[in-house]
Every structure is written in C-alpha cells, then in structure tokens.
C-alpha cells in the first residue's frame, strides 16, 4: 500500500484490513508502528492480540496476526509502501485449540506459506506437517469462515466489502 509518508502508507495499509475484519468483528485492529524504526518489522493484530470469538455454531475463534515493513520505493507504488512480512491466521475450536492455521514467516523455517492442520481437527498425523500454499489474504480466510464454516457476518455488505478490500490488496502487492 502506497503513501506519501511512512505514516500515510501504514494508514493506507491498515484501513482496508480493518474494513475486511469488520465483516466478522467490531474489535479494533492494533498496530505498533513507530516511525523512528520503520525499517524493522511491525505488528498488526486484532482484538488486543486475543482470539476473536466468532458468531457461529459450533463456536470458533480466529487469531489474526501480521508483520509488515515500511519500505521506500520508486514509481507509482511510492514513495513509501507497506509490504507484508508474515502472517498467522489461526482458526480454533470452542476451547481455543487450533483447528487449522495459515502461516507465512520468513524468520523461521519453513519460510514458504503453509497450512497447519491442528490437533483439534482430529487429524493428528498432519500436526507437524507444513502443507504448502500460495500467499493467503485475510479476505480469503474471512470468506472461508463465512461461506463454509457458516460464521455469521456482522455486516450485510460483507461480500462487497471483502471484494473491494482484496482488490486494493491485489493492486498493490508485489508478488503474483
């Protein structure tokens, strides 16, 4: 996401994520951007870092965590841009035990984006396996939860909202 200043780039990055997340929770998106250490990774999380209890039967919880960096770039994506440095989208059962999680973290192996199938899913032999995936957008996870896990959205225009915020994300991403 581009901006004229690092701060603006961060705002441009956070706003659509907040909008996307607002489809399932009114919890705040929290970040820790410090302009004095902008080259270092920053954190984005939801609900004060706690799992979000979703409106569903059975009950599910969702943890959203991302890391991002603010980088200087040239061209229409600049002069400042936020680039995602990792994510953890974890879906848990009513006891907050992990069912599955999409991970991407360059700082520990494996560094490719992957899916974990958690113990709570009942498929124990996959617990330590990192199933490769493409890069996953938060919108993909939210849509999955609403469409297939029957999580109740808290806004009626959720489909339009997710389409819009994902389009913004795809316009500015630097990977295919």
């Amino acid at each position, binding site marked *: 996401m581009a901006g004229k200043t690092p701060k603006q780039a961060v705002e441009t990055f*956070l706003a659509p994520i907040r909008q996307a997340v607002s489809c399932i929770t009114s919890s*705040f998106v929290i*970040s820790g951007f410090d302009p004095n250490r902008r080259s*270092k990774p920053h954190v984005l999380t939801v609900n*004060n870092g706690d799992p979000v209890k979703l409106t569903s039967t059975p009950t599910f919880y969702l943890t959203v965590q*991302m890391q991002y960096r603010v980088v200087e770039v040239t061209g229409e994506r600049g002069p400042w841009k936020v680039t995602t440095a990792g994510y953890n989208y974890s879906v848990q059962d009513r006891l907050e035990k992990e069912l599955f999680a999409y991970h991407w973290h360059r700082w*520990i192996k494996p560094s490719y984006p992957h899916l*974990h199938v958690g113990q709570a899913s009942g498929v124990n032999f996959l617990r330590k396996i*990192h199933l490769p995936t493409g890069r996953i957008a938060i919108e993909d996870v939210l849509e999955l939860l609403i469409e297939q896990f029957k999580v109740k959205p808290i806004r009626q225009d959720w489909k339009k909202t997710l389409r819009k915020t994902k389009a913004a994300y795809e316009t500015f991403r630097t990977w295919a």
Partner: protein
Amino acid sequence: MKRNSKNGFRVLSKDEGEKLLDRQARRYLGMSGKTFVRKWKAKEITNPDRPEVMRVAFLLPFGG
C-alpha cells in the same frame, strides 16, 4: 494516526506493545515477555512452530 481512531485501528505506544507481548507470553507460555524474548534470541524455545509459540513470536517486534 490516532489512538482509538474512528477508522477502527489503534496504534500502540512502545510501552503498550511491551505489555501486550508480556500478557500473551504469560497466557500461552507461562513466562514473561522479557523471558520469551531472551529465550527466543538464544534459540532456547523448543518447537518454535507450535501454535502457542507462534502466537507470541508474531508479537516479537513489540519486544524492541
């Protein structure tokens, strides 16, 4: 960017970030945030890809 912004996002101060890391480290791993940072840097955390470790490790930038 303001705290409690109408945009629905909130930017934490350094102190607030450290507190959040500390709270989650205690919740998921039973140790303080400072201990987690030290152990992580020393590679003393076993199976770092565990869900409970990952949830704290993602907050490491709050640890300075």
